[in-house]
């Protein structure tokens, strides 16, 4: 390297002078660097797109099977005696299951299915139909004694056989399913008794026990997430907007407000599990709010979302030109009128964007819910009424997905992916509502 201060050597002849027509080496290098820079940007976008596509394809491919379920569809008649007998037992759903399976064996024997089978094989093929049957006949006692068509989910491994999770080669006999059962399943599929159907229960149902993947649904936890989002929206938006308006428009500039500002920024970076611990200590153990309730989940997530909303609201308030304020004040509006009538409406699109980002973040959080009892087996079905929706135990979508992913039966893994699709759809709906609202509020000047 030459010394930086040394004077460059004088050109030897006229040809070294730069010309606009011919590109000299330096310009070429500069142009190449420019091209390279553009290419880097493009490559970054392509890498991002590539991963997005991979992610999307993986989610859809792994999750779509969760929306179909292998069902056994058959006419079933329950006699009054059997009904009374089953209701008289401790484990009623098991009794119904046994009655149903016995009836299925008889009906298959009458029809003559081209495969050998015994009652045990039927037990292995069927899922857990007891609860569905009991629910139906308890609600419709008039159906006793007449044939009712049921579509009952098959066992998880039979479902896996139809979806390609379980294959004949490499099949290991276990007490859950044996290779000979697959012949029976094929014969039943031929006869139209076993088939794949759209799994409405996955969209509307609640969680099920670990031995019953066919009965698991995400519906109840969608409701749980919905109520949590309501709490988050109706607490964090007004509090966040009020706080930012005060800080931005009214607060005096002093050390105290500086301190508050710094702390709000810091709070936005606090790990979400910390809010969970806080929620457990304050809301449940000190304030005695109910455990596993969307209300507490919503309160915890509100704490988490507030800094995001405050920061984005302040940014959008700052972006409103001072001339708007000056004009309002100049025409005799009070400070409050200028803020509420002019500044806030203009800042609304930015506020909504911030709120949606905050809500989306809150929707996907599992960690804070771990400590307040919303992660685990929470199979309560739908709440009875609006207020109960806040206080009755419920799970939330990410918590439900996490729980499913941790279960031993592979059938639940598929449900977890399906749950992710539902979660993304929920998020998409929220975003679309926000975009529509933003369009309505948007003003240009």
């Amino acid at each position: 390297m030459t010394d930086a201060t040394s004077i460059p050597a004088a050109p030897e002849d006229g040809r070294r002078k730069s010309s606009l027509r011919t590109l000299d080496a330096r310009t070429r290098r500069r142009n190449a660097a420019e091209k390279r820079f553009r290419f880097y940007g493009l490559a970054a976008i392509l890498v991002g797109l590539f991963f997005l596509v991979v992610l999307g394809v993986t989610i859809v491919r792994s999750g779509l099977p969760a929306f179909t379920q292998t069902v056994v569809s058959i006419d079933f008649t329950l006699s009054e005696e059997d009904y009374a007998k089953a209701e008289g037992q401790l484990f009623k759903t098991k009794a119904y299951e046994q009655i149903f399976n016995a009836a299925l064996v008889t009906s298959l024997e009458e029809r003559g299915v081209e495969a050998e089978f015994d009652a045990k094989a039927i037990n292995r093929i069927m899922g857990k139909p007891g609860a569905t049957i009991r629910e139906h006949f308890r609600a419709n006692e008039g159906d006793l004694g007449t044939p009712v068509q049921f579509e009952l989910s098959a066992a998880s491994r039979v479902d896996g056989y139809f979806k390609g999770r379980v294959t004949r080669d490499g099949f290991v006999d276990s007490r859950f399913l044996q290779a000979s059962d697959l012949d029976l399943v094929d014969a039943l599929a031929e006869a139209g008794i076993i088939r794949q159907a759209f799994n409405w229960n996955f969209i509307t149902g609640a969680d099920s026990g670990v031995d019953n993947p066919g009965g698991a649904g995400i519906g109840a936890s969608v409701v749980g997430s919905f109520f949590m989002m309501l709490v988050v929206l109706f607490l964090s938006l007004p509090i966040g907007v009020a706080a930012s308006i005060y800080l931005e428009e009214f607060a005096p500039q002093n050390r105290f407000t500086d301190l508050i500002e710094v702390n709000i920024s810091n709070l936005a970076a606090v790990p979400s599990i910390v809010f969970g611990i806080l929620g457990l200590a304050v809301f449940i153990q000190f304030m005695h709010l109910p455990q596993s309730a969307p209300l507490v989940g919503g309160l915890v997530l509100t704490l988490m979302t507030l800094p995001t909303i405050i920061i984005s609201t302040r940014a959008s308030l700052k972006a409103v030109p001072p001339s708007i304020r000056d004009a309002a004040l100049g025409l005799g509006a009070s400070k409050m009128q200028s803020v509420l009538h002019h500044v806030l409406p203009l800042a609304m699109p930015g506020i909504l964007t911030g709120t949606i980002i905050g809500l989306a973040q809150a929707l996907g959080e599992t960690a804070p819910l771990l400590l307040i009892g919303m992660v685990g087996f929470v199979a309560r079905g739908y709440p009875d009424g609006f207020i109960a929706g806040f206080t009755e135990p419920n799970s939330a979508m990410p918590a439900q997905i996490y729980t499913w992913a941790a279960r031993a039966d592979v059938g639940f893994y598929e449900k977890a992916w399906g749950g992710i699709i539902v979660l993304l759809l929920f998020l998409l709906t929220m975003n679309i509502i926000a975009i529509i609202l933003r369009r309505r509020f948007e003003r240009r000047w």
Partner: protein
Amino acid sequence: MSFVKLSASALAIAVLSANAATAREQIQIAGSSTVLPYASIVAEAFGDNTDFPTPVVESGGSSAGLKRFCQGVGTEHTDIANSSRKIREKEIAACAANGVTDIIEVRIGYDGIVFASQIDGPAYTAFTQSDIFNALAPKVMVDGALVDNPYTKWSEFNADLPDAEILAFIPGTKHGTREVFEEKVLATGCEATGAFEAMMAAGMSEDEAEDACLEVRTDGRSVDIDGDYTETLASIDANANGVGVFGLAFYENNTDKLKVATMAGVEPTTETIASGDYPVSRPLFFYIKKAHIGVIPGLKLFAQFFVADELAGPDGPLAQYGLVSDPELAATQEAVANEETMN
């Protein structure tokens, strides 16, 4: 602004409902992730078969569950703690300090702890406790002397084992399974290899030597798994040489991915565990706060439902899932019916 009104009403609802909801209706359960599957099966059946609401079952490990259980009496605390080990004296004392004195212990059955590896991986088919100890202890016996564990491959100390790198995924310390692993595998291996004797000879007291026997090496060949068995399974999937510790029920649900090793020549099955031939098994428990019986609706009924023959018996759904049913279930049923507390 309309949202101000809306949020005011939301706040009002929140406050009102908070006051109304202090009387809890559902049973709250937390604890062992090994007991969680069984508890969830029973909880679902309980909700389907009775008019009581389905209990809420949380996971998190035996120690964490018992800690929450012992935090006090009252509806803001859990009613039942699931545990894959017996409650410790220390925990009973912690409970008592917080006013939780009457605890009902319920044994629901037995679970085997199995050593399994990738189905296409090295042939880990037969282990003894000594093999596991030699592979995972920080100090082992080599040629009659206690030295820092020099082994990197299984075949170095047992020629019958595959020539593969030692890598084991064992349950983390917050899991009850870890304690059973320590006591039934490491401690036994420690004595069998003579390491225990050597430690005593080196001047350790009996207690110190016992504790030293339960330690695992920290050079990365033994990995603690704090999550559920699915995490162990994922680690095994990613490491062909890995050996993982699973519950029998989990292994039986994943026989297409895992192969199991015998322990001291015995294959883990429900039969060998029930007969006591398979050495690494443990009882599973849940603990009920007696003070909550009569306060939380259906609590006692739930406990009775859990241990009823129809559920926890050999033909019930719990055994179907992988629980080894307790031969003395009748005694447990009676104890629950009489609300017999510990001590």
